């Protein structure tokens, strides 16, 4: 009898867990688009948000695209995800990790001219961790190869 009760609890709990996990998956599935922290350039190019709506744009700062304006605080650059490119303008203090070829999340509004005007920049770090010395060595090796 005790064994049967145990078995019954095991089966009941198993069903409850499957239902629970299913509910959790459905909930996260429903949240899939809303819970994203930012738009990627491809999304923004396909479905441009209204120009008065505050949104976030995340992607890579395209190499060679960063241009400092004459006023000393404004910077223009292009955020790309490999599929689409969105020009961004920002005036203010930049985070330390904000460099070309690195990830960035810009908070602001998409202007009517297609330029994203950011009022805040967040640098996004990727999952790669490279020691400073090793990077120097790689650059040194590259430099040596280039001179050959």
């Amino acid at each position, binding site marked *: 009898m005790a064994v049967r009760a*145990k078995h019954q609890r095991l089966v009941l709990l198993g069903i409850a867990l499957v239902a629970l996990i299913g509910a*959790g998956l459905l909930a*996260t599935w429903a949240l899939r688009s809303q819970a994203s922290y930012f738009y990627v350039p491809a999304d923004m190019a396909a479905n441009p948000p209204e120009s008065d709506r505050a949104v976030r744009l995340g992607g890579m700062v395209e190499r060679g695209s960063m241009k400092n304006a004459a006023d000393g605080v404004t910077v223009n650059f292009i955020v790309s995800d490999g599929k689409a490119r969105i020009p961004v303008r920002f005036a203010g203090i930049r985070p330390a990790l904000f460099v070309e070829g690195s990830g960035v999340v810009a908070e602001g509004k998409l202007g009517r001219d297609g330029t994203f005007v950011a009022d805040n920049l967040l*640098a996004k770090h990727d999952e790669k961790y490279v*020691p400073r010395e090793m990077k120097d060595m790689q650059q040194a090796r590259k430099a040596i190869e280039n001179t050959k």
Partner: protein
Amino acid sequence: MHGFANPARFLRIARWATPLCLLLGLALATWALVWGVFFAPADTLQGDTVRIVYLHVPTAWLGMGGWSAIAIASFTEIVWRHPLAGIAARAVALPGAVFTALCLITGSIWGRPAWGTWWVWDGRLTSMLVLLFLYFGYMALDAAARGSQQAGQGQSRITAIFGLVGAVNIPVIHYSVTWWNSLHQPPSITMGKSAMAADFLVPLLIATVGFSLIFGGIVMARMRTILADEQAEARLRRKAMRAQAPGAGEAW
């Protein structure tokens, strides 16, 4: 399985395993932190702020691992009614909450220089904060259930169910960075692969093992306390019953 559920046997093992885990864990964690802070290299982009990873990653892993343990113990208690499982779940809650809080604090301190913000409401950060609140809820529920029931030191039924339901958050935390665009970076270390150079990875793994041993030691110490409380209470109850029954007091 049933052999491990025996409290007497657990106490015999825990007597020497608790100090062993705590001392070994303390030694490994100290070694890894000294290595990480003073000898490991700085990161190319992050510079010296990378060093907080040796505290942030182990605490994150233990915060999530703690709730996984609560869920497994709750399952075991509900199905097999092993009293030791409930005691283990109750013992994990407090250190789990402390490690989750440490993870959030260290992450926030890292986020300020690296991202340019202390906090964002992205998927990873929010689900980790939810985990902290789940721990608080678990402890409050456990304390409330404890006040209303007299005997037994395991979890109440409702607390065990809460421990199981809360486990839904664990995969959400883990996959939050891959399901949704988030400011938090995806995992550097996945099955058999690492996007992290060995100079960072080795001290990080030692720190993780060290903090896990400390966590295990704390849990065992707390389990022993709960079991000792139970014994003391049972003894007091017996005493009170003897004192109430006339005549029985003389024989004792």
